[in-house]
């Protein structure tokens, strides 16, 4: 997603694979939930490929689409939740992670990439 944010045109799986080091086969699999979540768009044809479906995509959206909602502990179906004081710790951890990852956008991460590129960092 960070690589896609640096591209102005559609990106082929091959070019994404070269830039990220992720195998083409695995990228194809990763794209399925990202497309379903409306985060990437795919276009067929000679100029086809993938691109971000919208601006200001957050890390939280990407992680939720790929890995599901962040749950540090399996409290969902636990009957002790109300009385369990450690449950509050997991809720606190969960909201810290969700809040922070909702604030960081893919675009912002991509801008660091461009900066390091400009400085010869790549």
């Amino acid at each position, binding site marked *: 997603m*960070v*690589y896609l944010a640096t591209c102005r045109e559609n990106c082929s799986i091959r070019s994404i694979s070269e*830039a*990220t*080091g992720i195998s083409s086969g695995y990228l194809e699999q990763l794209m399925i939930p990202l497309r379903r979540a409306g985060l990437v768009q795919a276009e067929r044809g000679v100029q086809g490929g993938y691109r971000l479906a919208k601006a200001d995509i957050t*890390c939280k959206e990407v992680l939720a689409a790929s890995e599901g909602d962040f*749950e*540090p*502990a399996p409290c969902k179906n636990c009957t*002790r939740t109300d009385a*369990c*004081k*450690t449950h*509050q*710790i*997991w*809720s*606190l*951890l969960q*909201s*810290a*992670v969700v*809040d*922070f*990852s909702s604030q*960081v956008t893919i675009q*912002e*991460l*991509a801008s*660091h*990439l461009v900066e*390091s*590129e400009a400085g010869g*960092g*790549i």
Partner: protein
Amino acid sequence: MKISTRGRYGLRLLVDIAEHANEGPIALTVVAKRQDLSEKYLQQVALLLTRGGFLTSVKGSGGGYMLGLSSEEIMIYDVLDLLEGNIAFEEPPGSEENAIERVIRLHFYQKLDQEVKKVFEGLSLCEVTKAQWFTYVI
């Protein structure tokens, strides 16, 4: 990052012992029953927590476990760090880390870890057992 069974049970053990601190040493059989956890597993976790100084064991009849420090001194972050080994999202860079991986590690996972640390900093076992501490945080 998922908190392992060891981390979750270990904290429940500490909370239980802290809440019944006025009853003297507490046998793990009692905690296992109260918390509906396996006693065998609690023994392993208790051993770790004792080594870490968070619990002390009292031998003999009427023996059991007590907090090794006061509940104000036991920091949740330290307990989790001990039980989980490491509670960071950031993973050490591989030998062939590329520019994208580096940016995500430094500007997302590393900062996320700082954020998590900030949230837990100063959170003691004592505050957790008081129960209402979280309502003003969330």
